[in-house]
């Protein structure tokens, strides 16, 4: 049982690194989708031998939402907004990758200090869960495109969810579904918001939103000099 969990966790780390190093929006969306699939499989792998209808249903729901529905919605958002395909990071790709490794080391240090329950499915669980959450936060603050902030939020949620799957024996079924529903609504709303930001400002660059003058008129981009 443990080797499978380990393999899946390492693949989760690789998808994190892919999103940190990927320079195209589409490849980052695919990275997040793959991560969703892996998280769904981890639900099954962490409870090998104790599969019941709830576990299987939860895994199927997660795979369908995070692995299929979200990538489809976000790919559509990229296509509809006709935004430039590059991620345009504030922090370059190579420093991002190094930061990803630093977060993993931080995760190892952190889970070594925490009194975690000992029945966890894998020793890697704590480090990977922490680092995934931290990398999600990092993606939110270090990327310019609003879409990457949605992805960062999804990665952050994956990290927290991984922690739950690996360390909590039984999560109420209702709560898991509630969180998934929240996520779905969140991504839908953010997708619509991105679309409207694009309609209003002709771009989805968040740093240019911060410096946009009050009452900027429709369709006119912010003046070049106003950029930080």
């Amino acid at each position, binding site marked *: 049982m443990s*080797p499978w969990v*380990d393999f899946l966790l*390492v693949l989760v780390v690789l998808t994190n690194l892919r999103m940190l*190093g990927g320079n195209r929006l589409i490849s980052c969306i695919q990275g997040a989708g793959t991560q969703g699939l892996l998280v769904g499989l981890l639900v099954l792998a962490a409870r090998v031998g104790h599969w019941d209808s709830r576990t299987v249903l939860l895994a199927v729901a997660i795979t369908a939402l995070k692995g299929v529905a979200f990538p489809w919605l976000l790919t559509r958002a990229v296509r509809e907004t006709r935004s430039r395909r590059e991620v345009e990071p504030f922090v370059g790709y*190579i420093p991002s990758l*190094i930061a990803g*490794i630093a977060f993993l080391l931080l995760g*190892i240090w952190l889970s070594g200090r925490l009194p975690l329950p000992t029945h966890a499915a894998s*020793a*890697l669980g704590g480090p990977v869960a922490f680092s995934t959450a931290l990398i999600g936060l990092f993606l939110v603050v270090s990327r310019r495109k609003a879409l990457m902030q949605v992805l960062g939020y999804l990665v952050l949620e994956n990290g927290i969810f991984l922690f739950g799957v690996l360390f909590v024996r039984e999560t109420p079924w209702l709560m898991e579904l509630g969180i998934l529903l929240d996520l779905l609504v969140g991504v839908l709303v953010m997708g619509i918001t991105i679309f409207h930001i694009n309609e209003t400002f002709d771009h989805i660059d968040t740093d240019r939103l911060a410096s946009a003058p009050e009452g900027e008129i429709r369709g006119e981009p912010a003046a070049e000099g106003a950029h930080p």
Partner: protein
Amino acid sequence: MSPGPLLHVLLALMAAPFLLGVINRTKALFAGRRGAPLLQPYFDLARLLGKGAVYSRTTTWVFRAGPVVGLAGAILSLGLLPLGGVRGMFSFEGDFLLLAGALGVGRLFTVLAALDTGSSFEGMGASREVQISALAEPALLLVLAALARHSGSLTLSGMFPALARGQLGPAPLLAAAALAIVLLAECSRIPVDDPNTHLELTMIHEVMVLDHSGPDLAFILYGGALKLWILGALVVGTVLPVATGVAALDLAVGLAGMVSLAVATGVVESSMARLRLDRIPQFIVAGAVLAVLALVLTLAPS
């Protein structure tokens, strides 16, 4: 002493150019051509060895030393190199540092020879080569450190049999992926460099050896083939850690692994476009990150 190590060195010396032939044939098949004979690299080497060398009056002994030192570094590394279960001819604690160092000295002299010609064109190639290897060399050392840590052995010949005994984990696979990236970068294969291009702006390795001719060029080509064999043997040893104890069987498995690696390299070269020059460091750093990940996995408590 069992005959395995000696046989491996002889096999590597004989068969290394054959790998280049396999790669070229794979690329030709993908392109829909029949391709050169599998033994074409040997014909090329024989032709070059039969020619005389031309030396420019501006070059010094450094230029003549370049190919010789490059080949000597590769042969020295070959003596340390295990192939799967077959041990290296020599082995001592920390020999993987000597392997990386010997390859590094060989490259240093190739670069110096390129600079010695005084051609600005070759200087540009030397600069690019050094930029790539400055990133690939730490990646190689990190991979070897991860393998040493994973197998608990500080000798190259001890690492791979230990991998064969241990259970298959994610760390060796990550290390193998990182090694494959190092191989593509160090042997100037396609996502990083194109061995076939002779367009001024795109050459990296080829431009450095433009002024070499005759036997010197043969030494450089042969040294490049040996380098491919050395890094390839590390990849094969990590992916296919077979140690049956019978030297002939281990050698056969190793050779089959090397030929499949050559085919895989040809497939990668045919299916990928060359990276933009400013994206190459990112590619190699990604390899280094995989190596660090492998190292971190071996450090993590289990």
